[in-house]
């Protein structure tokens, strides 16, 4: 377990990068900042997904549920109850975090593809539920919730930068901790792990709720940025799939894979879509197919296999 990334040079590099990113609002244009905000939000989504699914092997196809529930709670607080955004965000995230403990307790006993489908069903069901006549007085139903949080782009950017930084640090710490190892043991062989004294249910739920909290926080920021939430935007399957694809792109189960995936992916998307408006989505689909067939271990995995990067887990 040589700590290759713990060297002073690496930390110095990270510090410089962070300082640079922090100072960006002072010289970058709004467009670049918007792009960075989206990259950072998706970095949190992808890392949050990876934190649970990449380590435990439970494919979470309901990331949009985390995002949408937290987005809804925080948006409603800001729009209808005049909460200050800084307070609304953590409330939304805590809400989804706590609810997901219960949800995890119920759903995490379902395994494999069925778990993935149950999460999709949960997302779809919640979306429909928000629109029903019973919840409409609170949620505004299909009309959606438009609001202005009164947050400047720079403040938005710094918030999400801090969140992304914390998320990556948490992922790094977890991957190199015993808790992370236990999660990986669940992925490798859940039953064996349990007969070796690992409280698998508890560990899974903790990881699930932590993932929900972090993605939820990013989700709350996302909809504040968007000034608007409605059931179909809040729970769209794209909010689940894009982060998964980004993670696959960077490397599942790696620490920096999701961040790298989110960054590269957003840039490629930005370039492709400007040039190929309509075929863009078709190309996106083709890339997905190619990724699975020829590149299943992701960028970092591929580099590790080729010996370009050391085969250690902390990257």
């Amino acid at each position, binding site marked *: 377990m040589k700590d290759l990334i713990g060297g002073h040079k690496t930390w110095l590099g990270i510090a410089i990068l962070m300082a640079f990113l922090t100072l960006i609002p002072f010289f970058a244009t709004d467009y670049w900042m918007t792009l960075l905000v989206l990259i950072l939000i998706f970095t949190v989504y992808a890392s949050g997904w990876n934190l649970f699914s990449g380590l435990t092997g439970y494919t979470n196809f309901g990331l949009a549920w985390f995002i949408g529930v937290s987005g809804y709670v925080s948006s409603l607080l800001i729009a209808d109850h005049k909460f200050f955004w800084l307070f609304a965000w953590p409330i939304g995230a805590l809400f989804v975090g706590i609810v997901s403990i219960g949800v995890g307790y119920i*759903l995490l006993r379902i395994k494999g*593809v*069925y778990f993935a489908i149950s999460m999709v*069903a949960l997302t779809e069901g919640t979306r429909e539920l928000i629109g*029903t006549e019973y919840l409409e007085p609170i949620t505004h139903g299909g009309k959606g919730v438009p609001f202005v949080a009164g947050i400047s782009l720079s403040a938005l950017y710094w918030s999400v930068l801090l969140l992304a930084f914390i998320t990556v640090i948490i992922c790094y710490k977890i991957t190199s901790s015993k808790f992370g190892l236990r999660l990986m043991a669940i992925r490798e062989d859940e039953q064996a792990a349990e007969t070796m004294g690992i409280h698998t249910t508890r560990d899974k739920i903790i990881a699930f709720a932590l993932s929900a909290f972090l993605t939820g926080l990013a989700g709350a920021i996302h909809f504040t940025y968007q000034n608007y939430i409605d059931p179909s935007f809040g729970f769209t399957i794209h909010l689940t799939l894009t982060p998964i694809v980004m993670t696959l792109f960077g490397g599942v189960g790696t620490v920096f894979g999701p961040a790298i995936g989110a960054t590269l992916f957003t840039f490629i998307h930005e370039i492709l879509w400007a040039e190929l408006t309509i075929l863009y989505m078709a190309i996106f689909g083709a890339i*997905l*197919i190619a*990724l699975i067939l020829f590149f299943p271990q992701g960028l970092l995995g591929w580099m590790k296999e080729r010996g370009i990067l050391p085969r250690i887990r902390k990257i």
Partner: protein
Amino acid sequence: MTNFIEILIRGVMLGSLYALVGMGLTLVWGVVGIVNIAHGEFVMLGAYLAFWSFSLLHLNPLLSVVLAIPVFFFAGTMIHKRITERLTKAPELSALILTFGMSILIWNLAQFFWTNTYRSVPYLTGSFPFFGLVFAKSKTVSFFLAIGITAALFAFLKYSRLGKGIRATSQNPEVALVCGINTIKMRAVTFGMGIGLAGAAGAIVSLQWVIFPQMGASYVSKAFAIVVLGGLGNIQGALAGGLIIGVLESLVTQYWSAKMAQIIPSMTILLILLLRPTGLFKR
């Protein structure tokens, strides 16, 4: 009361179509082991096949249904041989993502070539009275078509050599392999059949509903509910599941609300997975 019976029968008709979509999905899932998210896109392609052959070749849409089966069967086996066969040993996430990619690719290409224009096949519109009840002509014909295709499928699986091979592969691929069954071929054939069913369902759908590139999505969630309800790989279960979902949707819309009816598929999935993970029907 007549209203109730009318709605019940309409639910059954609706359900027969759902069942057709669900049976294709459950076959592929149960035998090939691939959760085909792109299943709905093949329904969409089937609908376009019927639309184009109607508007360009003036082909009767009912003939298109018959035509769709071999066309989509062949396409399905080719897709499996070229692409999805490689997934049989990969983790489940791979298949989910790959078929999702396939879904995006197909509907966007459809959008590119055929535009977002909404189309429909104006054939067999309207209704006919039946002992004081009123039924849509298109749905009634669709119902009998769906029943016919289902019966043919059952007969094929039960009596033909190929069908027996498919059942063997679905129950235990290793044993089937040892017994000299070419499981790769079986999987390709099954995948083809699943796609064929989707295509046929699409051609039937074209009679009833609006056709547009993104229409596939609405069938997939229902098909998933049907598969979970009926039990994985269980054709009879999918038939029953489809009918149940169809009837529930009709009744709940009428006596409760359309929004509650929309929640049925996802609630079904959650409840069944928690209470009876093997599905409601024994194999």
